[in-house]
């Protein structure tokens, strides 16, 4: 592979002592300048993959090349190419935003006469210029994430790894970060490997999405391709009264396969059927519903189709699973 901004992963496995295979033989190719969304529930193996690709963990087997360099043999070269914002924005609460940028710029080998200007540029870019000289202990979660992103960018990396960058952020901060990531790709041609457990994030931001579950890559493609695999939309009916649910479920079952849902009654429509067919049938049969909605397939539907579980359900399973992981 020639030296570029891409990522190539083949048969990557990472096992923990006395633990499960956190990453179980995944193959990924990320093209230069692409935003690749790595989607999966907590504990699926996303962060472990990022740790291997960023040289923080050696793989148990398989190969991974980042920017054309092998992550095991050429660790220092890989680190020189990449910017990383890990899941926990590990910042020093006693340092200011500017202190962090000065430290990071020095450690990343940014020339002394460029450091101050680069710090200033990044502080403006992530909207922290006014808070630059405040201690990080007084920053909000969104500000910490933005500073973390600025730190990852300090040496103008060609490839950026963002591990759940918007987890815990309010919608406004999340949108601002998405815009910044999109801008980085558009204006600087940066390749972005982004892990997320948010469907919307992968859908909005990623050119291609890989879905990981229990260490295995279960689906990969553009969001549109993945949704097209599912193909058929679903219809969701909200009953007026709770006691009507069984009757509505029985009625809708004639139009497609029932979907598990606690909030409404839903079916995945059979091919050739549309909302108008349902509305007419509901009216004709005097079915009493408060609302009827047609939904295009989502990435959650893709996850459900590939794993038999919803993303939310998978996350709950992981939370309940007792695990002991050691390096």
């Amino acid at each position, binding site marked *: 592979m020639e030296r570029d901004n891409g990522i190539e992963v083949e048969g990557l496995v990472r096992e923990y002592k006395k633990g499960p295979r956190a990453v179980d033989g995944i193959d990924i190719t990320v093209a230069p300048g692409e935003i690749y969304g790595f989607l999966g529930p907590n504990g699926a193996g996303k962060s472990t993959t990022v740790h291997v690709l960023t040289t*923080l963990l050696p793989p148990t087997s398989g190969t991974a090349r980042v920017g054309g360099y092998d992550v095991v043999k050429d660790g220092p070269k890989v680190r020189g190419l990449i910017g990383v914002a890990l899941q926990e924005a590990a910042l020093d609460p006693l340092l200011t935003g500017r202190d962090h940028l000065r*430290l990071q710029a*020095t450690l990343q080998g940014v020339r002394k006469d460029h450091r101050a200007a680069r710090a200033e540029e990044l502080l403006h870019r992530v909207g922290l210029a006014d808070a630059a000289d405040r201690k990080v202990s007084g920053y909000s979660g969104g500000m910490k994430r933005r500073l973390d992103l600025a730190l990852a960018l300090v040496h103008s990396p060609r490839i950026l790894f963002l591990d759940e960058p918007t987890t815990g952020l309010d919608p406004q901060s999340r949108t601002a970060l998405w815009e910044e990531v999109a801008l980085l790709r558009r204006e600087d041609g940066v390749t972005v490997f982004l892990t997320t457990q948010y469907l919307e994030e992968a859908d909005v931001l990623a050119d291609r999405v890989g879905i990981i579950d229990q260490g295995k890559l279960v689906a990969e493609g553009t969001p549109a391709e993945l949704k097209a695999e599912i193909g058929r939309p679903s219809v969701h009916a909200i009953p007026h009264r709770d006691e009507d649910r069984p009757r509505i479920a029985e009625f809708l079952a004639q139009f497609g396969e029932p979907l598990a849902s606690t909030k409404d009654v839903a079916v995945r429509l059979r091919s050739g059927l549309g909302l108008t067919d349902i509305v007419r049938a509901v009216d004709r049969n005097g079915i009493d519903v408060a609302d009827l909605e047609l939904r295009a397939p989502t990435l959650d539907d893709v996850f459900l189709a590939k794993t038999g579980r919803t993303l939310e359900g998978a996350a709950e399973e992981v939370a309940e699973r007792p695990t002991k992981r050691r390096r």
Partner: protein
Amino acid sequence: MSSLPQVGAIARRSILRTSRQPASVIPPLIFPMALMAVNAGGLRSSTNLPGFPTTSFLAFAFAVPFIQGALFSTMNAGTDLARDVQTGFINRLSLTALRDWALLTGQLAGVVVLGVFQVIFYLGVGLTAGVRFESGPAGIAVLLVYGAIVSLSFGALGAWLAFRTGSGEAIQALFPVLFVFLFISSMNTPRNLIGVDWFRTAATLNPVSYMIECVRSLIITGWDFQALALGFGFVIALGLICLTLASRALRTRMTRT
């Protein structure tokens, strides 16, 4: 890329962190002085013992703060580094071009700067209180160098404990244990005047006794080269051992390919 700027950046961070935590700056300055004042007042009559090396207990006790302050440095340096492990800041550093030894050197350089600042403060208080150096101004210069080496060695001890345990709480729990070494030493009585056999033996086996006696010799004796050799020897040996252990533990902590 030269590692010197990296060392400087880590040292600057170490100093900034400490200077922004009054709880890390004030106790190492105040507590040793307070303990010295209490001992100098309460144990003054010890100077009447036959063979006591000086008539001023203040001059005798003035050596202790230099070692006690270094113990505080151990705890502060260790706690800071352990916190870096706990918060994942060490991962941030691992992802840069920072070399392992540059992290350790930078961190310890910060500890040494603060240690020398402590020594200057103790000297200022002591000289103001009337302590006179039998070894003269050159002895004060030697004490400054010794203070820097003591800070480095004890800082390396803190760094090793931090990288080994990865827990700030563990470092703080070990602090009283380190303090025991100070109390089972010749801090309050010359070894040859300790009446209890086991205590005298423990104080003789305890390297801290020789570190204190090294400083004490500069104040009350003048130039006692045996005391200086033992003091410098033990503290340099401690430093070398702890630096080796800390480097090894750091390599394990900064896991990267």
